């Protein structure tokens, strides 16, 4: 590389390339950060470790004890949906906790924010990258779960057909209908969507905590507390309201607690699905809106804190 070569290359820059003028909001900038975050996370070993564990657990449920096909499908759904819920939640926390602190520690955030990139776009791009990763992992685990369930359903159907070889056709049809209704049914879809929204909520809350946390470990420990308290808080709230009056002060206090520790038990629809109870549209819509509301609020809070942060 010589000076004359450099000079000639540099002269070409002026003639050929000029960036577009700055706009206060740019989806393409957010998309660039989103895709970069997704690339970053998919190249981390922890993503594959968690995904493989999740898939193994779902796959192993095929060998669970079987008493009747109803019980078998119940166990399979219980274990698989539980695994999807736990691993997406874990992935949401672990993947998000490192995003901002790592960028600050490596000074990568300086090079990004020294470009014409508003801070809220940076935060939005980061969370969108995590949400995309969670969507991919939820889809992969759900696909594995549905495949296992389908294979078991087919095996049970074949076994039933063999056993009922001499039975009247109506009886066989009834038996097959019973098998199909207890295996694959559309009620599982809202359940999976709610599991995903719960993971989104946890990711957004983790991002918010990480804007003021000094280390990744601190964020993960705080989120572990939030996770457990979030699952217990509904019971604690009911107990509190039984013992105390529901005055304005109490309501404000409970609203504050609910903001800090979202009611994660409300996102647990797995029990209904396992029991074969249909999830009403109202319950699904209410829970989904709650998840979207919390995710939005925590993302806005994270953007607000990050906006004022000294880097």
């Amino acid at each position, binding site marked *: 590389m010589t000076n004359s070569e450099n000079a000639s*290359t540099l002269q070409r820059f002026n003639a050929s*390339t000029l960036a*577009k003028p700055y706009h206060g909001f740019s989806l393409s900038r957010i998309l*660039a950060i989103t895709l970069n975050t997704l*690339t970053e996370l998919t190249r981390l070993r922890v993503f594959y470790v968690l995904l493989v564990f999740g898939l193994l657990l779902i796959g192993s449920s095929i060998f669970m004890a079987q008493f009747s096909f109803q019980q078998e499908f119940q166990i399979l759904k219980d274990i698989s949906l539980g695994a999807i819920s736990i691993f997406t939640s874990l992935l949401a926390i672990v993947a998000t906790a490192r995003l901002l602190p790592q960028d600050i520690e490596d000074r990568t955030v*300086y090079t990004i*924010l*020294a*470009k014409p990139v508003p801070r809220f776009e940076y935060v939005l791009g980061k969370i969108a990258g995590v949400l995309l990763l969670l969507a991919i992992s939820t889809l992969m685990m759900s696909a594995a779960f549905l495949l296992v369930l389908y294979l078991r359903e087919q095996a049970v159907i074949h076994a039933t057909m063999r056993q009922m070889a001499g039975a009247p056709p109506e009886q066989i049809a009834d038996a097959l209908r019973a098998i199909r209704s207890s295996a694959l049914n559309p009620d599982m879809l809202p359940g999976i969507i709610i599991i995903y929204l719960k993971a989104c909520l946890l990711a957004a809350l983790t991002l918010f905590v990480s804007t003021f946390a000094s280390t990744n470990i601190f964020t993960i420990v705080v989120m572990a507390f939030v996770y457990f308290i979030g699952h217990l808080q509904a019971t604690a709230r009911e107990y509190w309201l039984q013992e105390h009056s529901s005055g304005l002060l109490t309501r404000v206090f409970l609203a504050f607690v609910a903001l800090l520790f979202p009611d994660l038990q409300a996102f647990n629809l797995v029990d209904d699905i396992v029991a074969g109870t249909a999830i009403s549209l109202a319950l699904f819509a209410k829970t989904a809106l709650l998840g979207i509301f919390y995710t939005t609020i925590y993302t806005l809070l994270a953007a607000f804190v990050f906006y004022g942060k000294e880097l």
Partner: protein
Amino acid sequence: MTDSSPRLVAQESSGGGSCAEASSAVAVHGLTKMFPVPLHPARGIVAVKDLNLRIEPGEVYGLLGPNGSGKSTTLKVILGLVSPTRGRTEIFGRNSRLVESREAVGFLPENPYFYKYLTGEETLRFFGRLCGLRRARLKQRVNELLDLVGLTKARKRRLGTYSKGMLQRIGLAQALIHDPRLVVLDEPTAGVDPAGSREIRDLILDLKRRGITVLLSSHLLAQAQEICDRVGILADGVLVREGHLHELIAIENQTELVIADASAHLVDEIESMINRSDAKLIERRKSTTTLERLFLEATAKNDEGTTKQT
């Protein structure tokens, strides 16, 4: 290569002057930055105190000072990464707290890591997209910059495998991706070997030739002396010296004559003329090369030998 020119240093009386320009690439007005001490909000660590700077378009300005003198903090305030406690900073007349002021700026932080999982090419594409570059234009720019910083062959390698010098060069390339009018470099040659350091210096001089303003912080004074038009020296957050480099380091009453192929008789004659005048000869010695030039020549020859053998 050792220069055989004799060097004469004689005292004289001389004057100098400077001129001020109206528009500025960077303007810092009364900047003070205090960092609060945890649990003692009333107390604070003063990183920069009442700093006033003006950097003109097209010049290379060196912000010099020891570690902890406030250089990086000043750069961060100029880039809008840190808010000032008092005062104001501007880039080409725009308040540097506004995001749009950064359209004109490229920044290379000290010891940058970037994303280790990205290749050199992916890194430049990412930063290009952030600046609004797209498709063919982005591709062309990435190719040009990889060529400029000599990383075309390493474009598909992940940054995790890059050497320190290569990281600095890809860092410089990302700073230039949107063709900025101002380039801010925080310790651009820290930890880089002499050859890499020389390449970065040459790139900075090329930016200057294009009319790009360069603001760099450094504590490597010899290098700053080679490339800076003006310097400011910070100590404990206070600007203690500022001005054109040649004015700051010139010894007003001394002159150097560097003569090639002079006979001993000619030098003796000049010396006797000096002795007959009111001036005083302070030193007479052979000119020397720099240790950096010696190192680069020695390692370049060694490289050639190795290449020939292989």
